[in-house]
């Protein structure tokens, strides 16, 4: 009996006790105290990283609008009259930039599209197949991406020469694909693994074939993965110099090759070089911004209970 009477009393006393706020200025918890210091360190690191990335780009962009005297001036010119001479010179004359841009667009675009299509199919298979040694297979696929380009350039060159693919867009596409496809398979496989298998099972029960389930249910859910993979493959191929310098020729030279041709033994045309650099960087920066939007999108939210 005594237990039952003291119980409610104790509860009542606890309920009446006033809740005291922590004194102003005193940290609420050790975690919060350490959090402030950490925040400052993070802020400093972010500012340094941002300057490290943006200053060269800004220097390149500004230099591309300077005349040759301002570009090569011993004292950096921050105030100058912007001119379009460097860009005009790139697109006029016998050796203008248009063919290089076209080759870059074709080689990078086609290889990225193929990498995404084939990578999605293979990645789906890899994510869903239950077989012995699956992890080893997945590692083997990605390990082919780990080899330095120099290690595979010579054997590829011999194969391409035998197949007549040197100095051709298909040759460049194939070269980029050899490097991008393992990456695309690996990345897409990770995205497919995130999709609950019950979604495609539900589609199969609803009357879909395996292909229909993949197309109508799984692919739309991995849209962010497809876009991310496409842009990353595109950036790699667009920026590539090593493959292009070995496999391309007059009929297939890309933008990085055009940039390299401005560095000659008699001198460097800094104005045109920075203008090409700007032309190369801007489309990829825009693509990067697009990836940023998709990367953070969790399309599978709400797919299963509790999410």
């Amino acid at each position: 009996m005594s237990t039952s009477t003291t119980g409610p009393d104790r509860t009542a006393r606890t309920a009446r006790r006033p809740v005291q706020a922590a004194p102003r200025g005193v940290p609420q918890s050790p975690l919060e105290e350490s959090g402030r210091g950490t925040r400052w360190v993070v802020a400093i690191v972010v500012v340094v990283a941002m300057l490290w990335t943006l200053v060269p780009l800004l220097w390149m962009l500004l230099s591309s609008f300077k005349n040759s005297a301002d570009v090569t001036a011993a004292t950096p010119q921050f105030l100058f009259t912007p001119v379009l001479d460097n860009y005009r010179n790139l697109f006029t004359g016998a050796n203008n930039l248009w063919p290089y841009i076209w080759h870059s667009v074709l080689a990078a675009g086609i290889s990225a599209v193929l990498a995404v299509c084939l990578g999605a199919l293979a990645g789906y298979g890899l994510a869903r197949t239950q077989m012995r040694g699956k992890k080893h297979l997945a590692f083997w696929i990605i390990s082919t991406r780990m080899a330095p380009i120099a290690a595979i350039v010579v054997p590829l060159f011999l194969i391409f020469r035998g197949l007549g693919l040197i100095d051709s867009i298909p040759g460049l596409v194939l070269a980029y694909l050899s490097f991008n496809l393992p990456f695309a398979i690996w990345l897409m496989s990770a995205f497919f693994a995130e999709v609950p298998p019950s979604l495609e099972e539900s589609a199969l029960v609803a009357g879909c074939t395996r292909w229909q389930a993949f197309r109508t249910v799984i692919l739309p859910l991995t849209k962010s993965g497809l876009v991310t993979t496409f842009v990353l493959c595109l950036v790699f191929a667009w920026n590539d110099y090593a493959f292009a310098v070995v496999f391309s020729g007059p009929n297939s030279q890309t933008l990085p090759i055009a940039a390299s041709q401005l560095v000659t033994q008699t001198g460097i045309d800094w104005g045109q070089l920075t203008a090409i650099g700007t032309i190369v960087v801007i489309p990829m920066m825009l693509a990067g911004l697009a990836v940023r939007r998709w990367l953070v999108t969790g399309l599978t939210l709400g797919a299963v209970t509790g999410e």
Partner: protein
Amino acid sequence: MSRVLYDEATRIYPGSTQPAVDALDLDIADGEFLVLVGPSGCGKSTSLRMLAGLERVDGGRIAIGDRDVTHLPPRDRDIAMVFQNYALYPHMSVADNMGFALRVMKVSKDERDRRVLEAARLLDLEEFLDRKPKALSGGQRQRVAMGRAIVREPQVFLMDEPLSNLDAKLRVQTRTQIADLQHRLGVTTVYVTHDQVEAMTMGDRVAVLKDGILQQVDTPLGLYQHPANVFVAGFIGSPSMNLGEYRVEGDEVVFGGARVRLTRETLKALKEEGSDRVILGFRPEDVTMVGDGDQDDATFLVTATVVEELGSDAFLYGQYADTTDPRLLEQTVIARVDPNAPPAKGDRVRLRIVPGKGRLFSASTGLCLPA
């Protein structure tokens, strides 16, 4: 609507020698609500997935109606399935989710819209048709999953623990709704759950599985009153049946200071088995509290360690008091007692099994012995 037949259906997972489902024989009548129940890993979900065509059948066959569907792909089986996680398509609206199967079947848009709206009305989902699944609560998502199955108008509904993600109150409410809906639609339904209360309250019949083997299939009351073996006896019922292995002396079983006379049939079965031990089981509600004046050989003393007062019921959890046998002292005896005058913790109460309510099982095979 169709009859479903499992004929020695077997599934052995690659790399395993033990079948996940071992020669399952089940005949589910047209329009029946059959519940597959059992502990985790007993093969109940595998059995359901075999029927759905999502799991290969390694032996035996499965038929829906007159068709042998053993090796047919899921899309050709004319079934609808509600998954444990609902498996709603997050990129589609509720209406598109519900009408997805009809779109795949190339049903006209008008007909599709009509059937979706009809199901939405039935499930009180009309106002959510344009929403995406992530904007719904757990209970609403569950109803959408049900709606997706209903719209299809299939021959068989398959449900794989569809209530396990709901909170306790909603689960009780929804299980009544599902049972009612199934009754109204009259579609043959196979329902998987690990919750024996869900099984007992929803199914026309309940099939109990353990280690891939069907233990018993019967009506809920049949399973409760006439369990075929010790496993079913212990699994069905909450609180579970009191079970203990005791010595047989002469024509009586001796436990906790009590002696209960065995019938001639039981003794004959024990003699054939050559055993002097038997498993005795009794439900918590099949004992009565007796006063000291009514003490006889068939009564036993229990010390109450916990008393659960639930309002409408009260359950005593205790230990045999009148014994020194360490095995008996470890056993917990559960008894339903008068909720208006329950004993206190620490009290010693005298109990008696209601005559004819004790269940006896073979100590070697676990099977029910004739009473």
